[in-house]
């Protein structure tokens, strides 16, 4: 193993540790009715992160299936969190002022600068882009602890609290890229492109760009989830009709997900972004937010088609 890989595994083990903390928090919560199934989910997830590379891969696959069963029966819930008291937070905010943005800003800064240096300076070759993201988290944490003088245990307490807030859906991007790989291995992309090619004329790039962006948005509107739409449409349309015809895969990928978000703006299926806020803001119609967003979404989607056509080829 190279130094870069070893450091990478260290970071994945730290992530695993955060998952273990969430599980332990659930076990300690006497008021949590589903503490055993919740803890089991987080411990299994920690297992895939810490031991994943060293055990037979079917074992990881089996762990994922068990985790899916646990979420399917509604067995994974949030446990009690140590939420900071609003008055204390207000007092802290007045004490530290805008300086509190420094550690937060460190994350983006260290990640980008670290990754750039790592790719340019041979002595820093261990600093891969992945490791730079990990390093940015560590630097930001140290900066936060130094600035606030918080007890180091809050790194664990607050890390577990936010992870619990993100909840099980936090692993969705990872799971969906795995699904994309499985779809490709099973020939799903060939099947979709077989049907799409009945409607889309061969080698008409502009129409392909349009179908790709519109497909992303429509699938997102139906499913309410841009990440899921991305995996499906990328396999079925993006790869065969754009990337295999010479489009830059990076640009196809980058524009694909934001095209999907244009769909998110228009669908009641994405309740968290559209319906819940309407209720929260007590608008007259529960569709007020969607109604306000549709013209923007349509304009944005058309911009995506143009950008894709101009930039990717």
């Amino acid at each position, binding site marked *: 193993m190279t130094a870069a890989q070893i450091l990478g595994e260290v970071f994945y083990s730290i*992530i695993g540790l955060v998952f273990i903390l969430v599980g332990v928090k659930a076990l300690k919560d006497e008021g949590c009715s589903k503490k055993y199934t919740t803890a089991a989910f987080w411990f299994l997830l920690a297992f895939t992160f810490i031991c994943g590379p060293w055990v037979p891969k079917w074992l990881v696959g089996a762990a994922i299936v068990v985790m899916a069963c646990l979420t399917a029966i509604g067995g994974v819930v949030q446990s009690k969190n140590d939420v900071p008291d609003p008055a204390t937070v207000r007092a802290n905010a007045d004490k530290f002022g805008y300086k509190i943005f420094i550690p*937060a800003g460190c994350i983006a800064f260290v990640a980008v600068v670290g990754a750039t240096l790592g790719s340019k300076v041979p002595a820093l070759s261990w600093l891969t882009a992945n490791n730079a993201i990990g390093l*940015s988290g560590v630097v930001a944490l140290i900066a936060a602890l130094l600035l606030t003088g918080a007890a180091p245990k*809050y790194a664990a307490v*607050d890390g577990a609290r936010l992870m619990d807030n993100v909840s099980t859906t936090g692993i969705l991007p990872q799971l969906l890229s795995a699904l994309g790989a499985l779809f490709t291995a099973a020939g799903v992309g060939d099947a979709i492109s077989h049907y799409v090619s009945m409607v889309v004329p061969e080698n008409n790039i502009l129409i392909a760009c349009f179908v790709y962006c519109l497909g992303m948005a429509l699938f997102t509107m139906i499913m309410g989830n841009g990440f899921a739409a991305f995996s*499906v449409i990328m396999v079925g349309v993006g790869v065969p009709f754009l990337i295999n015809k010479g489009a830059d895969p990076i640009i196809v990928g980058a524009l694909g997900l934001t095209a999907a978000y244009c769909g998110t703006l228009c669908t009641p299926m994405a309740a968290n972004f559209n319906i819940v806020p309407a209720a929260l803001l007590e608008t007259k119609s529960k569709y007020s937010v969607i109604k306000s967003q549709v013209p923007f979404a349509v304009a944005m989607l058309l911009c995506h088609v143009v*950008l894709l056509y101009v930039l990717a080829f």
Partner: protein
Amino acid sequence: MLIRLIGVAIVVVGLVLKFDTIATVVLAGIVTGLVGGMSIMDILTTLGNSFVSQRTATLFVLTLPAIGICERYGLKEKAIDFIRSIKSATAGRVIMVYETIRTLAAAFSIRLGGHPQFVRPVVVPMAEGAAVAKYGEINAEMSDVIRGGSAGAENYGNFFAQNCFMGSSGTLLIAGFLAETLGLGETGSIAIEVAKWSIPVAVISMILGLVRSIMIDKQLEKMAGKGGDK
């Protein structure tokens, strides 16, 4: 040929019927593998392999302890203070200022919160306050325009700028997909490129947001009719 799409159908039906997302995705994967002629062992191995190599997509967890501590020490409160300190003459401008801040925060991976923490307690009162100062009085229709527009600003800033940070989960999903399915190289280095090519969309989103905020002001003026001061 059609049977191969059963996995896609499962994802669509599962999510539309609001079944558990993780279970739906895993089920779709297993069924797709089975109709594709893979054995259970093959499927578990492929799933496990991709899951382990895609751990990159969950790297954002490493930033949570730092963000959590910053929140404990007033990150969101100071962001609210900052937005409140900006004086804007019209509702549209208040909304635009918020969209700008939200866009920059998303691009720098600073998780600001969203509708419950910012839009309802801060943006909407400020925008409605500006409208009342300008038109004297606002009716329920005008209020709906302002509220819908404010909620939208939150979504635009959040959605279209977050991929500008290489460590955001969306960027890592894209990069992970390209690395895993197309074999383009290390996920992290692809993520830098994806983040770079996400900038044009973020810029366009700001421009469209500006146009929209001007239109909101025009619409409010029209709705206020002769009651306005201009």
